């Protein structure tokens, strides 16, 4: 029975050698991977004369689910999806907390409410137009003024998890932009993530996963932490 033992040993050895050779093969050569950059688009505190916020808003309007207009909150409300959420404003004007029904909708983008807004009449006109458009859409949350991450008084990142660039998109050299709306409560917890501008190739999933791993500081106004909604555009870019 010496042959049997020898056969088993040799067989095992041959298999081990074959396996190790297969494992030692160099991994398939991928096309040279470009470096990539993922940026959270943020803006500095923008005065009303700056046109970029309104341009930003315009971009979102093609998506049906969105109600991005900040001004809509003032007058139109038939349904309120988040009655408990509070206004986040950037300006010094305060709105009553905890009572959305009686809340004076405040937005420093509104002409007349905030002194800082009167800078550009052109911009104001554009915003009026935005407001008009939004009336036709879904009724906005009355008491919520949207913020953008990075604005004053808006939620901030405590820990910012960089999104993983989706492999497929990287290989296909696709770029994309995802716009998320985060509902962040007064404790800084992300209650809900709404995708207002999805992108294919796994961008949306990557962005949502990154936001879920990130942590935020709540929005604050007049020294108080409040719950808020914040828009977070994430751009995936190859360089």
């Amino acid at each position, binding site marked *: 029975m010496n042959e049997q033992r020898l*056969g088993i040993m*040799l*067989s095992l050895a041959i298999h081990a050698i074959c396996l190790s050779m297969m494992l030692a093969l160099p991994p398939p050569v991928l096309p040279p991977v470009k470096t990539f950059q993922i940026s959270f688009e943020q803006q500095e505190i923008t005065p009303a004369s700056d046109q970029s916020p309104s341009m930003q808003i315009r971009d979102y309007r093609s998506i049906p689910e969105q109600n991005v207009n900040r001004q809509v909150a003032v007058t139109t409300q038939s349904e309120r999806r988040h009655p408990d959420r509070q206004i986040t404003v950037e300006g010094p004007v305060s709105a009553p907390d905890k009572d959305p029904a009686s809340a004076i909708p405040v937005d420093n983008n509104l002409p007349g409410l905030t002194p800082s807004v009167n800078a550009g009449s052109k911009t104001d006109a554009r915003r009026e137009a935005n407001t008009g458009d939004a009336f036709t859409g879904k009724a906005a949350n009355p008491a919520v003024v949207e913020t953008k991450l990075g604005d004053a008084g808006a939620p901030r990142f405590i820990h910012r998890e960089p999104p993983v660039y989706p492999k497929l998109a990287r290989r296909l050299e696709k770029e994309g932009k995802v716009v998320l709306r985060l509902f962040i409560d007064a404790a800084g917890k992300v209650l809900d993530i709404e995708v207002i501008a999805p992108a294919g190739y796994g961008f949306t999933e990557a962005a949502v996963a990154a936001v879920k791993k990130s942590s935020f500081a709540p929005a604050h106004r007049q020294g108080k932490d409040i719950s808020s909604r914040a828009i977070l555009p994430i751009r995936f870019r190859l360089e």
Partner: protein
Amino acid sequence: MEYLGEIVDFGVIGLLAVMSVAALAIVIERCLTYRKVDLNLFQDRRALEFELTRRLHLIATVGSNAPYIGLLGTVLGIMATFHTMGTEGLFDTGKIMIGLALALKATAAGLLVAIPAIVFYNLLLRKVRELVHRWELGHGG
């Protein structure tokens, strides 16, 4: 349904690996035996054949069944992929393709086991016939 993936990974591939090791061990053992065998010790042809063809059927079994086992693994893997697609929704072609590609590895492993097994089986069978004929020549069979 996630267990299907594990069945494919560990069950089917593991079974194929065991079969491959066993078949190769038998092949080596047979080769050594044939080299050593002393034809003059056998008085009867049937006794010689009995000794020579021992365990050869195991190699044949491995050779004929390994593709089926690999195919079974592939079917299970595709089932798992479809199930994942059904539950999670069809959102990423890449993921689906990766699932299917990984499912096909079981078939590849089965063929990889079966082809050498059949080749060696035929070689050993030829060797057996050769030895038997040589014995017949020597003993005037």
